[in-house]
């Protein structure tokens, strides 16, 4: 089979590890625009992975899914967030609650835990066998980033990375669902980002800053 070289050179592994690395790198990035770039890279890799699998499996609907991902997550969402960030005039993340070295350590522990616990349980054969582990790691690390960061924008980026992780997991489990479902889910994500953007501006208006520390009036 001529398409076998995709597996022989384990290209999927390269790409998924690349996605994992972009998420890990989020831990040490302070500039918001660099965070956005990390997210863009992550989404582009996701789209690339889908396209390569489409090529390997010779499935037309996967090409469509890859195109959706590229346009929405790779282009539209980053551009929109970039505009929001410029409008809000935020450039840097304030020092996170947990410092960089420690959070890197925690992140790597998370990855180890995921790898060791998923070696049993769900078992996936085929060329995406590592993908599920990577995607669960991505989900957990993104969640960790969402918890520790103080800027609302970073929280949004963490949420988006988490969604990428879920897409990756879904992809490795299902090799892509039907096109209409992909379209619907992507549409929901897109709307979500726009609405979050609206709220970011409102937070800025009513709190003068977009730090999450300020959001503490409602308790109990």
């Amino acid at each position, binding site marked *: 089979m001529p398409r076998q070289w995709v597996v022989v050179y384990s290209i999927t592994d390269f790409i998924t590890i690349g996605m994992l690395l972009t998420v890990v790198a989020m831990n040490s990035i302070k500039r918001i625009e660099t965070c956005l770039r990390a997210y863009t890279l992550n989404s582009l890799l996701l789209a690339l992975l889908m396209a390569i699998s489409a090529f390997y499996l010779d499935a037309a609907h996967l090409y469509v899914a890859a195109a959706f991902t590229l346009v929405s997550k790779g282009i539209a969402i980053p551009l929109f967030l970039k505009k929001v960030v410029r409008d809000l005039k935020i450039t840097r993340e304030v020092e996170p609650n947990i410092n960089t070295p420690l959070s890197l350590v925690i992140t790597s522990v998370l990855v180890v835990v995921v790898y060791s616990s998923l070696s049993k*349980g*769900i078992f996936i054969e085929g060329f995406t066998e590592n993908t599920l582990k990577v995607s669960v790691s991505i*989900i957990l690390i993104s*969640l960790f980033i*969402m918890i520790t960061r103080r800027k*609302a924008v970073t*929280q949004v980026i963490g*949420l988006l990375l*988490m*969604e990428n992780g*879920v897409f990756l*997991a*879904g992809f490795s*489990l*299902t*090799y892509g*669902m039907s096109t209409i*479902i992909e379209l*619907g*889910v992507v*549409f*929901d994500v897109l*709307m*979500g980002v726009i*609405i*979050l953007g*609206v*709220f970011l501006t*409102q*937070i800025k*208006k*009513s*709190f003068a800053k977009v730090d999450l520390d300020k*959001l503490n*009036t*409602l308790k*109990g």
Partner: protein
Amino acid sequence: MMIIPAAAALICLLTRQRRVYEYATVAGAAAMVFIALSIAAGVLRGLVIKSPGGMIYVDALSAFMLVIIALLSFVAAVYSVEYMGNELTAGHLDKKAHRYYYLLYNLFIFTMVLIPMANNLAILWMAIEGTTLVSALLVGTYRRRESVEAAWKYIILCTVGITFALLGTFIVYYASSGALGEGKGVLEWTALTSMASRLNPATIKLGFILIIVGYGTKAGLAPVHNWLPDAHSEAPTPISALLSGILLNCAFYGVMRFAVIARASCGPAFVRDMMFLFGISSVVVASVFMLIQGNVKRLLAYSSIEHMGIIALSFGVGGPFGLYASLLHILNHAIGKPLMFFVTGRIKGLYNSVESEGISGILKAMPLMGVIGFIGVMALAGAPPFSMFVSEFLMLRALAAGGYWYVMGVFLATGGLVFYGLLKNFGGMFLGAPSMPLPVGAAVYKSKTSFITGTVMFGMAMALVVMGIYIPGPLDRLITLSAGIIGG
């Protein structure tokens, strides 16, 4: 069914005439009630509605949910006209925000109507995520600091939760493709239930845990309930009513559909234990927080968590009694809680405050609201002879029959705390000599409730009383049929 709210939303988008979009919303909701009732009548005659593509599927359970959604969206629409009109005159929001409110209101109804009609589990997910997005904007209607904060928390927490549910949905799909062969997985609920026994139990277990955490966040089950009190207390009152009256139930509906699959695949014990876990933690957390609440809207929000816990518990016991109790409680809560939010909204209009301290003598100041509110509080506390007593009693009976004495103990103890928490706050507000209304609110608000709103609220209160004594035949059959669907 779906076209009506969409059309009403379109009207809101097009016209700037306040009366036009108000009436469009109310008329649309009234038409929905009619359609939902006729669907329910059809289902009772044994019909099952399917669309050609298999995307839409309406059975008794869906019809039951549709009836609740339609009724609630109608009463909330009627109430909105008066309440939001008052807010407009009081200057709490501008004309544009008022119009957007109705636009979003109809979109919100649209996404919720989609939930029980979806056969495809991914469409179900999309609809539930859609409700989060739209209602987050509604929670933030006032654009005050607190409401923006509440909306932010709401959208972030629920989106994270629902992302887990998406993963759960993927895993269920994976399990189905494991049984049917590579690349042939299905997400149609009908197909999944018919082959549930062939699905890999370990995979379904993992999927169901993710689903219950994900949709449970949305349904307000503790310990993932934190967004709920904020969102409920900061949203405009009709929206608080919709959130707790139907949105929570719609999310729980998602859990129920998955539970049917999980029950058939990995046995009833697993589903029961998960439901008990979430149910017990919900009633405990809610009852403790209800003791220390002074803000009435937050108190009602915690009461919602408690009632969702009760629904989860009786759903967990299973069996004809447990499931019947669970569904009946969904209906009762969907009537009682919005009613109390409506009463609170009226009180807020008059006193410009929702703190129970400083308000007293409502029975004398607003006799109608006082009486209705009192009925509502007693019903929420689970006192006989009101309808919630019936469903809670049925649940206790199911628990006793199953021998789950520890669950019963916890429930009865928390029930006592809840009773005290509710009465401590509301008792002081309703009884005693009237405190003078604050001039700020009273100047702009009519102290008398309009005739239509009053009638609707009175009808809801009567429903609470009547259903405590007698459940109408068709409703009884509808619930029994629905329970049969869940019970398999």
